[in-house]
């Protein structure tokens, strides 16, 4: 009898425990404060120091916390931010900035010229080898003129230099920048819990137009398949960059899907140094064999922008729309080119794709099918992002890969520099004398027009030489709950939470 009683006791205790634990939920903290929960696909980096972060996913969030002397807007213009005004000398060597009055850091102190000088000096410091911001190696001198004015002198003229002045200004007094985030942006950092969330709060002493929503919770959703589930359940109010398939799953719900562009160059990047891709005819044949429109149709029901070179539409004047139709699907021509190159019977190659990007995997699968038409057998090999970085990107030990390349600054050189035959990050081993010359001319160009025309020549060379099989600038779809509005697309890889507001 003892066993029975014990057992019943045990069961009832356990049951009560379960019920009691589940019952004491309910009362949540009062929801007077306006807030929004935004899903993000990965956690931020280990450091909170804006100058040390490298991951695009961290940078786009820190855009809300930190600001530079100038700040890009959603049209791609650089507007004064911490500085109220700037002057550029005619020879493009001296940049003079006037500080804005009363700009406050998140800790309540006022921004001084010393803080600005400290931030720039920190990023230009070469004692550890390369400076934190590569373009700052060109800085000759940073001089404090008076309480409100700072003057930066360059060794060589650089017309793109202003775009690097978006570099975050942080207080000189913060010696724990790795773990304490103090910036001047519309939101201040509150806390983080690894793999769970990051919490931001509105900065009420912001110098400009203050943010609308008081509290932003960035919830990490590691499993992309659960994004739709979490949106539908109401666990998150917004997710930037849902796939077209996910967007379609949201139809008929209280979510709207906003469409912009992803601002990256998605292509099948070819290692130009290995056979058979060292032959321009083979590369061109691949370009003719791929039907870009079909890729867009499969992946995003036709959304996205077909591109023909390493440049996307958000760049405005640098973008050359005509290149997107330079190669159109032509199987006969492709076969002819292959035959000319000595591959009449086709060939096989391995297509290495990072496994964490579904859009690139999908594109690769369609390309593999399309290439079968010209007897080219591609075999997909999925690798982890980390392996991709070491084997493909730095090791250059691959044949072809499908990824998207983005620009860190809104300057044409951010996208085109890497194809210089000497560039350290020229992972496709592109080697063209004509390109190197054109690129050098663009950098040396005095007038804006001159530079633009040389950059365009670079783009044309990449297209004609078929450096890569350029595909598209992917559609960027943002899922946003009906209760919110005000989302703005930027031509850069950033998210601006300050413009979001609650619809009454």
């Amino acid at each position: 009898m003892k066993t029975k009683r014990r057992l019943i006791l045990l069961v009832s205790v356990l049951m009560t425990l379960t019920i009691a634990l589940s019952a004491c939920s309910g009362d949540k903290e009062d929801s007077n404060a306006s807030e929004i929960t935004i899903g993000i696909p990965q956690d931020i980096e280990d450091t909170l120091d804006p100058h040390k972060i490298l991951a695009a996913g961290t940078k786009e969030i820190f855009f809300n916390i930190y600001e530079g002397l100038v700040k890009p807007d959603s049209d791609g213009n650089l507007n004064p931010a911490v500085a109220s005004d700037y002057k550029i000398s005619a020879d493009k060597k001296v940049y003079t900035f006037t500080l804005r009055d009363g700009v406050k850091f998140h800790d309540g102190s006022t921004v001084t010229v010393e803080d600005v000088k400290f931030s720039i000096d920190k990023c230009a410091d070469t004692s550890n080898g390369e400076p934190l911001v590569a373009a700052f190696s060109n800085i000759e001198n940073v001089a404090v003129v008076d309480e409100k004015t700072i003057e930066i002198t360059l060794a060589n003229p650089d017309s793109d230099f202003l775009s690097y002045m978006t570099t975050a200004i942080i207080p000189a007094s913060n010696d724990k920048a790795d773990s304490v985030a103090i910036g001047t942006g519309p939101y201040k950092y509150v806390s983080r819990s690894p793999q769970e969330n990051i919490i931001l709060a509105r900065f009420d002493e912001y110098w400009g137009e203050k943010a609308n929503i008081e509290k932003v919770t960035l919830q990490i959703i590691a499993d992309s398949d659960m994004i739709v589930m979490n949106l539908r359940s109401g666990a998150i109010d917004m997710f930037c960059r849902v796939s077209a398939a996910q967007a379609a799953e949201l139809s008929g719900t209280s979510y709207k899907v906003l469409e912009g562009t992803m601002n990256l160059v998605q292509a099948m990047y070819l290692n130009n140094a290995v056979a058979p891709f060292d032959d321009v005819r083979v590369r061109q044949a691949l370009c003719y064999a791929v039907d870009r429109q079909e890729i867009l149709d499969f992946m995003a029901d036709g959304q996205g922008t077909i591109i023909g070179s390493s440049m996307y539409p958000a760049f405005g004047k640098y973008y050359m729309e005509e290149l997107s139709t330079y190669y159109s699907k032509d199987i006969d021509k492709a076969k002819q080119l292959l035959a000319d190159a000595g591959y009449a019977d086709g060939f096989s190659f391995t297509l290495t794709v990072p496994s964490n990007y579904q859009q690139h995997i999908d594109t690769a699968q369609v390309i593999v099918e399309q290439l079968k038409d010209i007897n080219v057998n591609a075999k997909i090999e999925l690798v982890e992002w980390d392996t991709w970085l070491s084997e493909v990107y730095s090791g250059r030990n691959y044949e072809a890969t499908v990824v998207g390349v983005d620009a860190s600054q809104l300057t044409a050189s951010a996208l085109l520099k890497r194809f210089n035959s000497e560039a350290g990050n020229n992972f496709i081993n592109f080697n063209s004398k004509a390109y190197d010359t054109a690129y050098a001319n663009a950098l040396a160009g005095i007038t804006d027009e001159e530079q633009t025309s040389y950059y365009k020549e670079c783009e044309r060379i990449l297209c004609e030489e078929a450096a890569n099989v350029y595909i598209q600038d992917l559609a960027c779809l943002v899922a946003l709950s009906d209760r919110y509005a005000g989302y703005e697309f930027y031509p850069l890889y950033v998210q601006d939470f300050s413009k979001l507001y609650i619809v009454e």
Partner: protein
Amino acid sequence: MKAILKKLITMIITLFIVSFLVFLAFSVIPGDPALSKLGTQATPEALEALREEMGLNEPFFTRYFTWIGSFFTGDMGTSYSYGIPVSELIMDKLPITLVLTGIALVIMMVFTVLLGIYAARHEGGIIDRILMVVNQIIMAVPAFFAGIIICFVFGLILKWFTPGAFVSYEKDFGGFVAYLIAPAVAIALPKCAMASKLLRSSLIEQGNMDYIRTAYSRGNTTKGVLYRHALRNAMIPVVTFWAMAYTDMIAGSVVIEQVFGIPGIGRILLTGISNRDYPVVMAIICLLALFIIVANTLVDLIYKWIDPRMRDNG
């Protein structure tokens, strides 16, 4: 006593082998933690400097012994991807996984006993048959798929919980536990099916034993026989199954944490592996291994204690 001591020694040896295998595995897989940290912007100089700073340029055995030495003094190093001590990270995340698997364990035990006894008492009845079929089907569903179905049915249609709306235990303990019930059910279901099946057949087997027949012939009631004599013996294999099932649940929580968006140990482990966050991964694996080895040793000892026949050929 000697047997226990021997067990303890072999346990420690096993742990050493595990730690060495883990360390070896992470030294040979491609992917460089320094490069992983620097990403696409890495310059050769910066990379070399960071490798030096992270101690990646030391010889293999030096690194292994440095690591294992500090591990035993409680210093598990600093996480590459979160910049905080690994021990702090684990202390922060371990309660989540423990509560999750704890709830699952309770659910499993309660339902095993209820279903197992019911099925055994009504052996061959219609409910028993239905239960058997349902059990078989539950065991055939992949864990992540079961999780998705639970999210879909109980989260989206019935709205019993909000998939993805995890709350931290520091903020709202009740809400935290409430959120963990659905994933705990997903973890417990297949184990529950197996355990109740085991208990049922074990009870039926006991029912055919001589001593039970004797008890009946003495005029005991069915109930009395079932609980007083049969259940006690029938529970022995079930309890050992529970112990093994619990270690399985901890390993299986990796998948369920992913489905339900729970930032527990499993999630940290998985992201740690893909980010090459070695200190975190090695610490978690070694702790998991420690846990599993201790659990297995305990089960072994219990076995020996219960069944003397096992004693002489340990």
